[in-house]
Structure formats: C-alpha cells, structure tokens
C-alpha cells in the first residue's frame, strides 16, 4: 500500500512538474548569434526548391547573421492545419506560405508581421511596384501582412487532340468564333464523353469537396457565396441556384462533367477541358497531346476572371521575425521576383507583361500570357476568403453533399447551406 501511495505521489509530482514546465515556457528571446530561418511551403517540386535555395544562398553570402534557410515542404491537403498545429506546439516557422482562403484568418488575427515598413526601407525593393489588385487581400490599413508571391489566374486548358477525335472545334476556334461560353463547353464535354468515354470538363481539385473552387464557374453567373462585407450568406441566391443547376446537369444528366467519386486527370489526357491555374502549365511539358490555354468561358453574366493567390508571411511571434522580414524583402526583390516568375506569376506591375513572362514560361506564348495572365490579374476576383474559413468550408461541404445526388432539390439544399453558414459568418 505504501508503495502504491509512493508511486502515485511520484507520478503526480512528475506530471505536475512537466505540466508546469509546459504551461510556463518562457517567451522567445531575441536571437543573439546567427539564426536559422525556416519557411513552410507546399511545393515539393525539385526545381522550385532549387531556385529557393539558390536565392537563400545569395542572401546568406551577404548576411552573416543568417546561418541557414530551410524550405520545409508540407502536404498541401492539410497545409493550414499543419501550420496551426506547429504554432500551437511552439514550433512555428519563421516564414510561411499562406493560402488565400486562410488569408483573412492569418491577417485578421495578428499572426503575421506587418511587412510594409521593412519593404519600404529595403534598398531596391520598389514597394510601389506591387499591384494594388494583387495585394488587396493581404492589406489591413496601411499594413501589408504577406507578399502575394503567386497570383495565378484560373484558365481553361483544353485537349485539342481529344476534341478533334470527337469531331469538335478547338477552344481557340470557339474563342475566334465568339462561341467560348459555358454552354458550349458543357455541350462539347458531353459530346466528348459520349464519343470517347473520356471526361468532358473538370474543375481541377474540386472533387466534390473543395466547393470554393467552383467560384471559377459561378462567377460567370454573377453569383457570390456571401455579400461584399462578408456578413450575409448569399449562396442561395437565384444566380447561385442557376450556376449549381448548370453543374448538376453536367454531372448527372449530360455527362459533361465526371460525377462524384469518378476520377479523371486532364494532364494524363483523360479529359477535354480542365479549369485550373496557369501555374499548372508545367504539367504539360511532356503531354502526349496537343493543348491550348484560354481564359475562363463566358457565363450568363458575361466575361470574368478568377485569381488564386498565395502569400508569404512572417510569423509575428517568431524570435527571428525581423530577420525573416529582411530575408523576405530580398527573396521577393525585383531581380528574384523575375526568377520566381517562371513558376509563380508575380504581383509586380513591372513584370506583368506577356513579353516578360514568356521569357520564363517557355510553354506559354506571349499572346496566351497577355490574354489570360495579365488580363486575369488586372480584372480578376480572388477565390472566396472569409474569417473562420475552415469551419465555414466544412459546414458548407457537409450541406452540399446533399446536392451531389441525381435527384437533389437544389434550391432547398442551398437554402439549408445558408442556414448552416449564416451563424458562422456572424459568429
């Protein structure tokens, strides 16, 4: 009995000691010696990482106070969750890529350092060169809380070989004929599916889960999931109902779009069209088919464009925050932005010309880049972003599951979706 008591006491003491130690960890102190910087990214592309490393080495050669810069690739699917967990576990990175759908959470919470003072003071950074349209999501007042290193418009890649196999005109021919609209894409997609058994059009990465990617479609109907000041759900609007009826018909009636649980990879030649960001063009380097790149098709509300963004921010609580901000100013200066532009369309107006981008994007012509990238960045709306995005994303996904069945009552489902979303928007 005595032993049991002693054991219990020893265990409790050890537990208390570790608990207290965990709860009372000292605040990070300013670094004294050379620092190691860590930036979390979601790319594991060897070419991307090699470019990042070369820029980091150039920086370290000039700055002895930084002994290493590590680019830490994290899986894309759980990227934001992983970052949050790392911060909670006291293992926050110094710099992090941030997705646009989490932008308002990161910017609004104060998790990111204001970069404007560092960028403005950095020699040769040319702060005024940053496009207002590209940086809008990342600004709060006069502050800039992340550098939108990738501002990549959504566009339509089409498989010309597959379309020809089904005796259909290419996307370029439809653009020239003034017939480049969603109805035509859906009709051609259904025809390709009927003639070849391959998929018609797909919205890449949507997979009946990432519903916000459908903004690349519903903007053509003039629909939005919430109002401009993000206080009211509008996903049950008439325009949205029409947009979802179009998608539902494509998935369950005409076969223009693969249904839930059916996989098709455009880049493997399994679909006629895909909506995705132009930064995916690299996947076509060894495509065994002819392809084209065109802007998003016109919807009933007219022409439109949608931009996907990713920013690089400095975690404000990092003990190396200021050093990290200095490194970021170097990483994204005009010279390095020009190098990064071969993979990530930059937010710098001086670099946003078809001619400049064509030099670093050999797969795309200056004409394609002008019509899709330059025009898209100038006029595009960003993917939906809202505070509390993870919870809203999940709540809406759960409700929309009822829509992806053959006999769904679309207005009723969207109305129920608003009922689920509204308290979270207000909350």
């Amino acid at each position, binding site marked *: 009995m005595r032993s049991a008591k002693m054991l219990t006491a020893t265990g409790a003491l050890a*537990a208390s000691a570790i608990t207290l130690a965990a709860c009372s960890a000292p605040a990070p102190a300013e670094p004294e010696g050379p620092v190691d910087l860590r930036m979390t990214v979601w790319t594991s592309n060897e070419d991307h990482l090699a470019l990042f490393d070369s820029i980091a080495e150039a920086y370290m050669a000039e700055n002895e106070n930084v002994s290493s810069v590590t680019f830490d690739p994290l899986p894309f699917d759980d990227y934001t969750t992983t970052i949050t967990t790392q911060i909670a576990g006291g293992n926050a990175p110094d710099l992090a890529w941030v997705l646009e759908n989490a932008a308002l959470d990161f910017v609004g919470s104060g998790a990111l350092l204001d970069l404007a003072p560092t960028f403005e003071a950095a020699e040769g950074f040319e702060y005024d060169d940053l496009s207002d349209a590209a940086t809008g999501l990342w600004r709060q007042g006069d502050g800039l809380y992340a550098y939108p290193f990738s501002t990549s418009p959504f566009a339509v890649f089409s498989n010309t070989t597959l379309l020809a196999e089904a005796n259909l005109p290419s996307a370029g021919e439809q653009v020239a004929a003034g017939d480049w609209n969603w109805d035509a894409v859906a009709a051609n997609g259904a025809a390709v599916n009927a003639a070849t058994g391959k998929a018609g059009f797909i919205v890449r990465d949507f997979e009946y889960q990432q519903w916000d990617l459908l903004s690349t479609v519903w903007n053509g109907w003039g629909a939005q999931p919430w109002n401009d000041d993000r206080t009211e759900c509008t996903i049950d609007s008439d325009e949205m109902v029409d947009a979802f009826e179009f998608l539902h018909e494509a998935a369950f009636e005409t076969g223009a779009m693969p249904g839930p649980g059916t996989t098709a990879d455009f880049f493997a030649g399994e679909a006629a069209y895909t909506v995705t960001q132009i930064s995916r063009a690299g996947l076509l380097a060894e495509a065994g088919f002819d392809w084209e790149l065109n802007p998003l098709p016109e919807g009933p509300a007219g022409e439109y464009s949608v931009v996907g963004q990713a920013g690089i921010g400095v975690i*404000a609580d990092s003990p190396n925050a200021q050093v990290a901000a200095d490194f970021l100013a170097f990483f994204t200066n005009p010279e390095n932005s020009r190098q990064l532009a071969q993979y990530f369309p930059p937010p710098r107006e001086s670099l946003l010309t078809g001619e400049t981008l064509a030099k670093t994007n050999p797969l795309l012509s200056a004409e394609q880049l002008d019509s899709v990238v330059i025009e898209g960045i100038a006029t595009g709306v960003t993917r939906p972003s809202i505070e509390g995005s993870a919870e809203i994303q999940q709540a809406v996904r759960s*409700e929309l*599951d009822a829509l992806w069945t053959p006999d769904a009552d679309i207005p009723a489902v969207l109305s129920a979706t608003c009922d689920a979303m509204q308290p979270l928007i207000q909350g």
Partner: protein
Amino acid sequence: MTVTVVRALPDRAPARAGGAPRRRPSRQRRQDALVGYLFIAPQALGIAAFVLVPLGLIAYYSAHEWNVLAGSFRFVGTENVERLFADPRLAGVLQATAVFSIGLVIANLTLALALAVLLNRRMRGVGFFRTVFFSPVVVSLVAWTIVWGFLLQADGGINGMLATIGIEGPNWLREGPTAMASVVIVQVFKNVGLNMVLFLAALQGVPHELFEAARVDGARPATIFWRITFPMISPTILLTVIITIVGSLQVFAQIAVLTQGGPGTSTTVLVYYLFQQAFQFGKFGYGSVLAILLFLIVLVLTIVQWTLRRKWVFHEN
C-alpha cells in the same frame, strides 16, 4: 455448558501511538525496493509524460479559449462545457460513433470467431489461411485505407467486379448508409485477424475431454458450441469486446482518408469531430472538452463491461 474462549490474536502490527515504534525496513528490503523502483521508473516516467501530463493539460485547456493564430489564451471557466450541451451537431456525431462502434464490434467479433472456429482444425493449408487473415493486421493502416479508398470509388475496383456480373454498384463513399458500412468493413478486414488469433488461442485451450464427453452424451454441434465452447472462451470474448470497443471509439485515419466525415456528417465520429474542432477550426478549448467526453465514454463502457463480466464470463462467477 459451553464456554467460549476469546483469545486475543498476536499483535503483529501494533498501533504506533502508544505502541512499540515501527521497525525500519532492513537494508536488504530497502535495496530491493530501490531496484524495483528503478525497474518501473522508465514506464512510470513514460506514463507521466505521455498520459498523465496530456490528461492534465486537456483539463486545463478545456477551461480556456486558445486562439493559436492570435496567440491569446483566455480563461473561460465552464463556457466550453456549456457549449458541448448546446452543440447541435453533437447528437449526430454521437449517433455516428455508436453506429460505427456497434457495427464494428458485431461484425469483427462474429467474423473473427467464425474464422477461428473454421481454422481451429487439422487440415491442409490451415497455416496459409491463418496467415492470410492475419496479414492485414501488420499492414500500415493508412496504406490499407488508401488502397480501399481507390477500390471503393464509383469507378473503382469493387464496382468494376460487380459490373462483370451485371450489377451496378453504389457510389460507396458518397452515399450515407454505404459510406458508414464501407468504413466499418474496411476496419473489420484490417483487424479481424488479431481477434481471430486470440480466439484461436482460446479455442485450443479448451480441454478435449469436454467435447468428447458431450459427444458421448449425444450433444449436437450447436449445443456443444453454445454450452461448452462459448463459456470456456468467454474470458477471451470479454477481452476482445473491450479492446474492440475502445479501438472503435478511437477510429480516425479511416474516416480522414475515406470520407472526411461525409457525406454530410454521416461518418463524423467523435474523434474526427474532435480533430476538426481542435486542429482544423483552431478551437482547442472545445476540442479538449470533446476529448474529456471521449475519455468518459470509454471509461464508463469499460467499467460497465468489467462489472457485468461476472454474469456471463466463465471463471468469474
């Protein structure tokens, strides 16, 4: 006349107050105790660090609201507990958890026992079949689940096989009832081998004389099973029921990989809901309350089973 003599027992442990002073343990005993403590020290420290500390922290966090991004940590008292009772999704989550656990326990134990009975006989190739049924236990859970995810797609391998015999299979992971059934079956096939081996060991421990005597008395196979085999292996059944129920309440990877809690919230079980709240939505305080709820459910179920064992487990009554 009877004389009752009450004799005082020798006083082996006199009270310290007013009695003789307690003898100090001998040097040898103290050394023995020290060695014993040293042996259990690694385990005790491990339990302290990885069980007791997290439990303490969970209780601590449950009374706080922790905004990780903002770096704020605020005491909120019982606010998170009150939120638990007002959470409109909790009933559905508990229902999904119960459906999964009941389905898994019934399917797993029934299949494991049936396989054990079938493979508890001398026949050619029995070792091969035992290995086949046990092998999924040693396969990586995530790899196993990902492969099943492909098989269960609308255009996946299962429906492909069904199509060859003219059956149009459902969209397994996208329809509520089939999604839950799919997750249960994937988990059953993954772990049925472990329970099968436990049952096999128990079956081989039942004395043959009992079966011979029953046969001599004219008992039918079903009677032999229910009157002899089942009671004799009931301690093992109790063990497998407990570990299967506890395991079923901790299911996570299968849900995360196969359904992400959908369609709707039909497969959102408690652990997955906890993960969503804490790690996806950043509500660590509320997630901690859900963790305490899960702990209490496991604790109560285990106590209930342990208490009821006397009624049905052989050797326990």
